[in-house]
Every structure is written in C-alpha cells, then in structure tokens.
C-alpha cells in the first residue's frame, strides 16, 4: 500500500518528516493497525493503561480524519502498520539513541513506528506531573501520519512539550493540516435533527436550547454549530445516549411541535417510537395505555414504510414523509395525508437547476435552527430548500425550491467515523 521508500542516506536513516520529492506522503489504507510491542512496554505504567492511552491517542486522530485505527495483537509483526515501544539509550534496534531523562522524549518515523524514551517520566492523562503520555502519543502519531513540526500556538505539533492544559484537543488548524493529506470525512447519514429543550436562565425566564445530532449506523454525533465541529469524544453508540429506541439505522426523526403538542418520534422500518425528553427515554406506552413501538400505518394513516426520511413544517403544521421519489404531506391536526399527495419530490421541491436535485431516496430532511433552513441530505451532498427569506431577497426563486447541491463536509465539519472497537471509549 506504499511505494518503496528511497534508500537511506549514508549516515543512517533520519526520522524524516519532510516528504521527499515524489515520495509517499500519506497512508493509502483507510484502516491502520497498531501494536504496543511486548518487549517495548514502559516500566512506569501498567501495560493495560499504556494501551488504553495509545488507543485514545489514535482515536483522537480518527475523530478528525477519514482514517481509523485498530489495535492488532494477533497478526505477525511485519503486518502491523504502526508499532510503538518504549526504550532507553540504544533501543529496539533503532539507529537513533535516546539521551536519558530530559530533552528528547520520543521520536517517530513517517508512515512508520513510534519510540518513547523510557527515561522520561510518562504519566497518565489524569496526572498533573511528568510528561503526558497521551499528549506525546498524539504528537508522534501526527508525525507518522505525515505532519511536520510547527511553532503555531495551540498546535499539537509544536516540537517542545508544553505542560498539559486542563483540556487538550486537536484544534482547527491541526485538523485541516491532516485533512490536507487525507481529505475530509465524508459519508451519508441515516438522519439528522435538532433537539429542542426548555431551560430557565438565571432570571427564571424560559429559553429554548437546541442541540444538533447526526446519526449513522449504530453511532451518533452531537454537532457544535458555534465551534464548527462535533463534541469532543464523539461519536458514541446510540444505545448509550438514547434509551429505548432502535440501536442502529434509524430512518427518520420528527419533532411535532404546536401550541398544544410537543411530541418527538423516531421511525424505523414499519414502526415508530415516541421519546420522552424529560426522562430521556422512549415511552413504553401512550396516554391510552397502548404500547410502543407502534405501526406507522396506525399512527400515521396513509404513510408507507419503511421511510427514507421526514421533517415537520411548523408553519404549515404538516409532516413531510419521503419515500423513494415521492413525498407525503401529513396534516397533524386532521391526522391524514393531504388530498393531492403523494406527489413527486421534484414537484413539491423543484430544483432551481432542474438536473441538480436528489430526485429520490433522500437520506435525511433536516431543519436547522442554526441556519434557519431546511436541508436535504443524500450521500455526501446537501440541497438547501429555498426559504421565505430567500424569496424576499430573490423573488424569482421557486417556492420550496432546492439550491444546487453542496458538500456536507463543507458546512458541517469533521463528522468522522472511528473504529468500532473504540466506540466505547
């Protein structure tokens, strides 16, 4: 998966990070294996703790780039992509000698292995003394991935160790630097929605807060719109954050919100669940004692299943359900589909450029409170729906038209998968 490296210079190979002209700059595989060498474990921390810290370090990178990392304890050593080890002085067959306590604490080889100087006092993330093994590991993994040193304040790739702030994470520039080598994270979502909560501020006034969620397979992210990234530590498993709903492949979410109703529904297959925001769990039964999940055909007569997606239009008090090339407008007050429906999605939501349209099988219809707009997601792309405000500024735009598609990753940043073995971290 790599081109053969150039022969080492006569003085011995250097842990080169500047890409040789025409040389390989990045891994081509999407999943890389790693292992802490049995004979290279530190004598300062328990082996399991070292492995946990290294696993977290790899995960932190995979949260911001389209690569993931899995620990491999079984394969022959030559088959492991990244090997890590601790050593003192002359160590692990490495041509570079460690210098003892102080100064050099570790080094790494581009697209290769990582060595830590075990004469240094490496400590776990919870310690405020010594040198954080997590921080050093994240830095050295950056070199393995192809990043050089930088003196930019805040970067994890600064050459000198900076005693750990209360929190350290990969900032915007570090993310963009590694994405320059490996690209941005792409991929379709099962559903996306904003979750509304009522809160009281310090004066006792009721405020509405929202959180943005993206769901894919059996995991999800909370997206922080103000910070242009996901919440640190995401993705996490659906079953850990959402109780009583299907643990994977959700079809749709609808928040039915009127003056008298505040109901949240998850849809999968031919069933739907109602979610209790206060108790943070799915209802087991409704007010009449009928149990959840219920059949979509019973709760929403005239709506087919399984669905592609759905969203609730608060102004019109309609739920738009999408399946294949059709859209169904469901009147929540009369509890039935509007007479003229179903209709083609292209008729209800025409493309401003006719050929620039998702046409069918939309992944998610998402109303964003951050952007005050509805978006249709399909694959890596989104189409923004023309709003009333858009039409005030440009009256020629069709009502409910779709703007030409854009890339999801250019508006919602760094929504990246991690290896499934690290989902529980």
């Amino acid at each position: 998966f790599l081109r053969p490296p150039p022969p080492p210079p006569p003085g011995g190979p250097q842990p080169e990070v500047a890409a040789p002209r025409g040389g390989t700059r990045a891994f081509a595989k999407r999943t890389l294996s790693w292992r802490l060498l049995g004979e290279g474990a530190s004598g300062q921390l328990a082996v399991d703790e070292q492995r946990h810290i290294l696993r977290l370090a790899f995960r932190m990178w995979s949260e911001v780039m389209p690569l993931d990392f899995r620990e491999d304890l079984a394969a022959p050593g030559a088959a492991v992509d990244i090997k890590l080890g601790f050593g003192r002085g002359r160590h692990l067959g490495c041509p570079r000698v460690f210098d003892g306590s102080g100064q050099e604490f570790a080094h790494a080889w581009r697209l290769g292995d990582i060595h830590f100087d075990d004469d240094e006092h490496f400590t776990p993330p919870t310690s405020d003394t010594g040198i954080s093994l997590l921080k050093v590991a994240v830095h050295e993994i950056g070199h393995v991935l192809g990043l050089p040193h930088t003196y930019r304040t805040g970067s994890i790739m600064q050459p000198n160790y900076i005693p750990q702030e209360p929190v350290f994470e990969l900032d915007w520039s570090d993310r963009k630097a590694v994405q320059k080598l490996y690209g941005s994270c792409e991929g379709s979502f099962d559903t996306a929605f904003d979750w509304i909560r009522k809160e009281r501020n310090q004066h006792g006034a009721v405020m509405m807060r929202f959180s943005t969620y993206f769901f894919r397979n059996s995991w999800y992210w909370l997206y922080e719109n103000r910070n242009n990234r996901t919440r640190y530590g995401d993705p996490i498993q659906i079953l850990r954050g959402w109780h009583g709903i299907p643990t994977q492949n959700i079809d749709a979410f609808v928040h039915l919100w009127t003056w008298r109703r505040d109901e949240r529904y998850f849809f999968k297959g031919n069933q739907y669940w109602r979610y209790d925001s206060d108790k943070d769990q799915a209802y087991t039964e409704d007010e009449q004692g009928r149990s959840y999940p219920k059949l979509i055909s019973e709760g929403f007569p005239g709506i087919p299943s399984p669905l592609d997606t759905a969203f609730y239009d608060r102004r019109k008090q309609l739920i738009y359900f999408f399946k294949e090339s059709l859209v169904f407008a469901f009147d929540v007050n009369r509890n039935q589909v509007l007479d003229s429906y179903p209709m083609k999605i292209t008729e209800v939501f025409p493309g401003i450029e006719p050929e620039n349209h998702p046409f069918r099988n939309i992944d998610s219809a998402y109303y964003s409170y951050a952007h005050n707009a509805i978006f249709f997601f399909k694959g890596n792309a989104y189409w923004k729906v023309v709003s009333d405000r858009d039409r005030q500024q440009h009256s020629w735009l069709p009502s409910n038209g779709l703007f030409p598609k854009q890339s999801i990753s250019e508006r919602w940043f760094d929504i990246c998968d991690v290896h499934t073995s690290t989902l529980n971290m």
Partner: protein
Amino acid sequence: EPLFHSRDRSDLEPAPLRRAQPIADPVAAQRFLSKYGWAAAPPGPGPRAASPHAPRVGPRAPALAEAVRRFQKVNALPASGRLDAATLAAMNRPRCGVPDTRPLPPPAPGPPPSRLPRPARPKR
C-alpha cells in the same frame, strides 16, 4: 538469553535513570541545531576522528550565530544570535526527537465566522 546473571540479582534491577547531557556550550548547541535541522552538521575533524585525543571541532561562529538567530525567532526569544541563558534553556526543554526540517506551513484559513462568542473549551 542474557549471558551473565549476578548472584545478588542486581542485573534484574531497573537501570538507574540516565540524564541527558545539558546543552551548555557552543559545541553542544551546534550539535542540537544540526540534529533538528537548524544548521548544517559541523565539518568532521578529519582522519584522526577515531582517536580519543582528536580535538572537538568547534562550530564556525557566523554560521552558528545565524542558526541560533533562526532558532530564537521561532521560540519568541530576542534574536541576538548569542547563546544566552534563555536560548540554552529553550534548547534544554523536553522536545520531540523529530527534526524541524520543514519551513513553517502557511496558517490554515480560519473557521467560518461564528455568530456567538465561543464558550470555554469543555472537557471531553
């Protein structure tokens, strides 16, 4: 297997921590700067290098000063070109062993403007 085991089992004791030689003179500083890509390696002493009595070859002063100046600039130190205490302290700080061979990359374009002030960074 190890070739020799001592009776008192002292061979099984962990080796005492070795300390890195502090960088305190121009020769050590030159070695540091060469190692991390701030300066070219100093010329070797010649065929007598193998002898333990071969003289240590000092760095050429102007080249060293220039390298020191470059190092001082990126470390936010006064770019005097002299090995003052602050510069030596910077060289002795814990650091990664990978050379700083690349020029500083251009800063990434900043994130799209946010409408609201950013809160303090939350804990993971």
